[in-house]
């Protein structure tokens, strides 16, 4: 059962990629991505069950596009991001990057693609090696891929530091000498070192103070414009995602619930799960009253997910038939897809 998001290739005006990827083509196509974590048990360590972290996820990303990936904890969004970069091995599915299925290439071939895809981590404290200088942290990928050496390497590191709002003198310092926001900038500089085409930003601002979040998001926004980056921006905060994303993918329990252009999703959510997520976003105006959709209970276990629609156990409009079929992703308006049989389909 595929839930392919068949986005009609729309021609983006002036979206010529710096590397000459034909415009309109997808930079990344993910098809039916699955990631199961086996649970071993018994005397012979047999697999007794699987944690189905990511189930049949398909999505396309065009060059220069920022796709937001949202969902609550345990929805599989981080696992999906890691699996796309093959930082964890996907159980099955295709990850077509620039026309090559990188899910199939060998580990040593994969190293070549690591120059093109990078990741920014959530925790700016855990993601920097405390025993390496900032210069070595940022320059490591340059060493690995032999991109620059000696003076050239130093220049590149300084350039990256300055581009991310730090300065050359920070190069010889250690991570603990920096604040959370500065560390996140170091993490971004590290990701940019190889001049990648695609970056997975895994909740890059969730661990930062609210006052710093905007700065880091703005930095990412600037970098994206300037370098023509393509981003998969993972977050649980819809507010941040709305600001930076062109399109938003909503995940729940390993599956995609809804995909839509960012504005459309916020103005006109179709899936009841998206509605619930949106109603949880605080509105900075105490006079505004709105009906809140409050979800009951917790996200079910991904070891034994509900049959049919995985959201039905917490869905306010669930019906009997929801237990029977896995709702396919259907297009409700151009570029807007939903996986819910209780909401009107394409008209």
């Amino acid at each position, binding site marked *: 059962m595929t839930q392919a998001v068949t986005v009609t290739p729309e021609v983006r005006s002036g979206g010529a990629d710096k590397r000459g990827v034909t415009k309109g083509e997808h930079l990344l196509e993910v098809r039916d991505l699955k990631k199961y974590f086996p649970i071993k048990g018994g005397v012979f360590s047999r697999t007794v069950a699987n944690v189905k972290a990511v189930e049949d996820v398909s999505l396309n990303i065009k060059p220069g596009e920022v796709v937001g990936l949202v969902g609550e904890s345990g929805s599989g969004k981080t696992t999906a991001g*890691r699996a796309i*970069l093959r*930082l964890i091995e996907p159980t099955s599915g295709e990850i077509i990057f620039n026309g090559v299925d990188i899910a199939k290439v060998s580990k040593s071939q*994969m*190293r*070549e693609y*690591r*120059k093109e*895809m*990078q*990741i920014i*981590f*959530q*925790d700016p404290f*855990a*993601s*920097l*090696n*405390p*025993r*390496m200088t900032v210069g070595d*942290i940022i320059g*490591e*990928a340059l060493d*690995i*891929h032999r991109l620059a050496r000696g003076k050239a390497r130093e220049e590149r590191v300084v350039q990256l530091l300055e581009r991310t*709002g*730090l*300065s050359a003198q920070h190069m010889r*310092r*250690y991570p*603990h*000498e*920096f*604040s959370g*926001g*500065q560390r996140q*900038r170091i*993490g971004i500089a*590290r990701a940019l*070192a*190889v001049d990648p085409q695609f970056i997975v930003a895994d909740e890059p601002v969730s661990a930062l103070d609210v006052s*710093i979040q905007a*700065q880091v998001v703005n*930095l990412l926004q600037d970098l994206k414009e300037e370098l023509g980056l393509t981003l998969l921006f993972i977050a649980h905060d819809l507010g941040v995602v709305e600001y930076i994303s062109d399109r938003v993918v909503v995940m729940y329990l390993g599956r995609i619930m809804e995909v839509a252009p960012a504005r459309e999703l916020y103005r006109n959510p179709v899936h009841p799960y998206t509605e619930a997520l949106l109603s949880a976003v605080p509105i900075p105006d105490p006079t505004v009253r709105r009906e809140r959709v409050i979800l009951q209970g917790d996200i079910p276990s991904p070891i034994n997910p509900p049959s049919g629609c995985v959201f039905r156990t917490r869905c306010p409009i669930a019906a009997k038939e929801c237990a029977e079929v896995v709702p396919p992703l259907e297009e409700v308006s151009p570029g807007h897809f939903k996986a819910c049989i209780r909401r009107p389909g394409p008209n």
Partner: protein
Amino acid sequence: MASEAVRSPSRFRPENRVLRAFFQNPLALLGALLIVALVVVAVTAPWVAPHDPLELDLLAPYLPPGSEGHLLGTDNFGRDILSRLIYGSRISLFIGVIVVGIASVVGALLGLVAGYLGGWVDTLIMRAVEIFYAFPFLILVIAVIALFGPSIFNVMWVLGVVSWPVYARLVRAQVLTLRETEYVEAARASGGGAGRIMLRHILPNALTPLLVTATFGIPEAILASAALGFLGLGVQPPTPEWGVMVSEGKDFIRIAPTLIMWPGLAIMLVVVSFNFVGDGLRDALDPRQVER
């Protein structure tokens, strides 16, 4: 652009905080001073020792402590005990450092590989560790020494080889947590191979507990070599090794009990000093330690 204040550059790496905590511990400080003194004595032995440690004076055996020219007296052959102790410190320290050096390097590398690669490599290495643990340590050493013959060189490598499992286990446990860190993942995302990740990202961060264990390992090695010396399986007489000195002195315990007292005291002091330092290091490196 960066409106968040650039923090005032702190000149202190975490190590400095650790050092301060360490030197605020009086026992650790005492231990460190004793060890420094011992190292100085060992290095300068030919100049500080009043006599040649092997020089016999058969006319003046069993001199009591405080005799003229022999501060700690003489042994059954009239050799100066102080000089023998001073030269003995060289051997004991040397053995301690070399044994721990061999054991920690071998153990750390095997633990690193086992923990990072996992799978059958891990199984193989860790089963070997368990086998080594299951053997009574001294029996194994005695068996090997009996096979290869007693010599200071054999003592060192045998003790080194039998004590690596402690370090392997320790490092492996560290690696298991460190390999899941985001900075290791970042290195993999940048295309870093297993070797680079193990040596540049994991090992440097696993070294602190290793340092503590190594500090406790040195006195253990010194004790073990003294025990072997006492049993006649280690360093051979007339080399002035502390264990050998106790062994030789035991035959004269009735006429001159000080013959075994002095080397015994020396062994005790060294062992206690290293243990104080080890305890101090462990406490100072404990992240839960609150700075006063």
